[in-house]
């Protein structure tokens, strides 16, 4: 009785009108682009906030044009961190690599015509957009009502992410075209699939925590100990709340959330390195297992954030061992990246530079992570600034590099134009040097806080610390200014009218490069693509070019070779 299908089939006609095309369009490409616009807005707002924090940290009395009048109280200064973090983690790191690029390219790379549940996809996008609006609005409200709105917005984001994660998993599992067996899937698809599964497990946990928190705030229950509850007239039977409970639920989510943000970036990096080194991914199968391992360990190590708040005494070593065992998949990935680059015919395009930059940041940030994974060392040896430096380097900046690499790589397919390479390279080098100047000194500040040098001569240590902080702020200003180059490059390329460029400018193998640029509205049209081989057939001998695309039939390959 199966007849037609609203989802998963090619749209018969284009959507009409600006509203229809932009806001009610269930096309995965439009939704993916909308997510990317959302992330672009959020990342610049988030950077602006971090700039304001850095400036006030070093020159507390500084008058900043335009924003000095807005919210100039200590409470609002504290809320800057919250807004910066929630924008960057939810709207940029979670949304861009998975929901943005994933929505656009997952169906294209597996040869599908749509996501599995297009309407659900649209709903998830609008819930995300509403959540962004709520999170941003919360900043301008009174702290009490602002926080409530913030929690509600985060709960909404959880629902959106759950819908999106469900869609991704089902699409990657069930909508693959003929011949696209699991071992032939590009690593980006693997990463999107694993992130989808991980996301559908952990956003439920955050949602549960939000339900408790909202019920505490709105109907006065006693799940967590919060000041609002203490301020009420407490009945005799009212117990003390348990902050530990919040910590457990929260860290269960957050630790895995790191990998929800990182997994797609790892996949993108593998993909870019192989394409631009013109070599197959080294030890492909091991890389797939490593990606699975990252997801699995990431899900299991939540406990290591609660060492200080009273776990069972046997638990910390277990969690520390698990956390350190994350080094295993990380080393496999690293070995594969270096093995792929080794003896490759490396093309240093901007996308490749960002992918190599990712590798560099991953190593730099990952090493300090190994140090923090020790349950008996992290807490006593370093202060918060070490941790701030660590996670910004490995999660924030590295992931941003992968996002930028993906943008430079896929821009021709999305907009029918290339981004300017000279501007891109200038932007890369300024950003690359800039982020190291910002976040490396933070590690040093963190180490200094507990060092004997600081204890022996606190005055000299404080003066040195102040100088370092001024340096960090200066580097932040320069790095953020460099993003103007990117914004100019991006917007000027988007606004110039698209011209049809060659299908496959990077000579890549995956299915999205077998169709026109920019992508036609019905993707592959009436033809159903068929996949004949793995995704990384580079450096092949005896063919016309040095690669064989996935969709080329063996006869055609032989024909071309002759």
């Amino acid at each position, binding site marked *: *009785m*199966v*007849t*037609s*299908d609203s*989802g*998963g*089939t090619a749209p018969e006609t284009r959507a009409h009108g600006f509203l229809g095309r932009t806001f009610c369009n269930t096309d995965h490409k439009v939704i993916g682009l909308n997510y990317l616009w959302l992330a672009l807005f959020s990342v610049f707002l988030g950077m602006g906030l971090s700039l304001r924090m850095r400036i006030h940290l070093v020159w507390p009395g500084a008058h900043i044009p335009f924003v000095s009048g807005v919210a100039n109280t200590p409470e609002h200064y504290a809320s800057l961190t919250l807004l910066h973090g929630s924008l960057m983690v939810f709207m940029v790191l979670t949304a861009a690599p998975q929901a943005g690029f994933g929505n656009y390219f997952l169906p294209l790379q597996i040869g599908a*015509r749509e996501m*599995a*549940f297009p309407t659900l996809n649209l709903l998830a996008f609008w819930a995300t957009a509403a959540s962004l609006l709520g999170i941003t609005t919360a900043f301008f409200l009174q702290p009490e009502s602002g926080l409530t709105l913030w929690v509600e917005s985060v709960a909404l984001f959880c629902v959106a992410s*759950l819908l999106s*994660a*469900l869609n991704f*998993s*089902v*699409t990657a*599992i*069930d909508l*693959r075209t*003929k*011949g*696209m*067996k*699991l*071992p032939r899937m590009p690593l980006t698809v693997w990463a999107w699939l694993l992130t989808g*599964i991980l996301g*559908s*497990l*952990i*956003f*439920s*946990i955050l*949602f*549960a925590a939000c*339900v*408790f928190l909202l*019920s505490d705030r709105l*109907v*006065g*229950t*006693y*799940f967590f100990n919060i000041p609002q509850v203490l301020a009420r007239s407490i*009945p005799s*039977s*009212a*117990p*003390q709340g*348990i902050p*530990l*409970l919040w910590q*457990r*639920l929260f860290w*269960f989510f957050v630790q895995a959330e790191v990998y929800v943000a990182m997994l797609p970036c790892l996949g993108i990096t593998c993909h870019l390195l192989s394409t631009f080194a013109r070599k197959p991914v080294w030890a492909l199968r091991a890389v797939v297992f490593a990606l699975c391992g990252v997801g699995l360990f990431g899900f299991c190590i939540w406990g290591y954030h609660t060492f200080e708040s009273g776990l069972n005494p046997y638990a910390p070593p277990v969690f520390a061992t698990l956390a350190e065992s994350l080094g295993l998949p990380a080393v496999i990935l690293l070995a594969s990246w270096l093995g792929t680059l080794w003896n490759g015919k490396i093309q240093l395009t901007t996308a490749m530079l960002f992918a190599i930059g990712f590798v560099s940041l991953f190593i730099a940030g990952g090493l300090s992570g190994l140090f923090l994974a020790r349950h008996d060392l992290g807490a006593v040896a370093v202060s918060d600034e070490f941790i701030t430096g660590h996670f910004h380097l490995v999660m924030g900046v590295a992931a941003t590099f992968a996002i930028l690499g993906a943008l430079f790589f896929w821009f021709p397919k999305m907009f029918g134009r290339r981004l300017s390479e000279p501007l891109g390279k200038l932007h890369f080098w300024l950003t690359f040097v800039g982020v190291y100047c910002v976040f490396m000194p933070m590690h040093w500040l963190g180490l200094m806080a507990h060092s004997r040098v600081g204890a022996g001569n606190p005055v000299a240590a404080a003066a040195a610390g102040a100088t370092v902080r001024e340096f960090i702020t200066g580097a932040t200003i320069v790095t953020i200014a460099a993003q103007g180059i990117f914004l100019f490059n991006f917007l000027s390329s988007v606004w110039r009218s698209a011209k049809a460029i060659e299908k496959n400018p990077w000579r890549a193998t995956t299915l999205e490069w077998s169709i026109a640029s920019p992508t036609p509205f019905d993707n592959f049209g*009436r*033809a*159903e693509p*068929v*996949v004949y081989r793995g995704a990384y057939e580079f450096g092949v001998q005896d063919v016309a070019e040095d690669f064989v695309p996935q969709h080329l*039939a063996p006869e055609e390959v032989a024909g071309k070779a002759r």
Partner: protein
Amino acid sequence: MPGAPVLDEIRIIIEDIGKGAGNEPPSGGDGDKRRRPDPPSPRRYYTGIALGIVSIFMFFMALASAYLVQRSTSERWVPLHVPPILWLNTMVLLASSVTMERARKRLSLADLSGFRALWMVTTVLGLAFLGGQLAAWRLLVAQGIYVATNQGSSFFYIFTAVHGAHLLGGITALIYVYRRNFEAANVSLSTAAEITSYYWHFMDGLWVFLLALLYLGK
């Protein structure tokens, strides 16, 4: 290599995930590539409901683990005696699962009117369960036990409210399956009924679990 057969088996299992998709391409020439694509199979609805159930399961496990932690660590845990009407509600919900399976049995025998009657009975039983849950709340309120009275009562209200909201989603699906004309739809009636039944039985089992938790935790 001694481990090779095992690895091969794992590989076969991996390649078998998502049967149908990712089959070996046909060896014949280009003829296959130009024909109009088949409509996608409804398999994605099964995968979707399975993953959705896992997601919802995680959500309730987070709630349940919070309950267990609070109960064991709180110094002033006030036990809550569950209202006896809950046992009746549970019977109603379990009965709805039975009628649903009987409805699907009717459908498999091509007895459409029998299916529709039993499906309606299932829907009514679901609504009766929700009504019963509201009655339980009223009984507690009559005893002066509100949501913010103590931790035990907070958990009781949150558990029942959240489960009720999820069950309401199930009732919506039941009504949708009842009213929708499946002649022009993308799935068959039996598929839609089957997928709804998975969700419904899951909600049923989940309630039994929550009730056991509340009852044993008093």
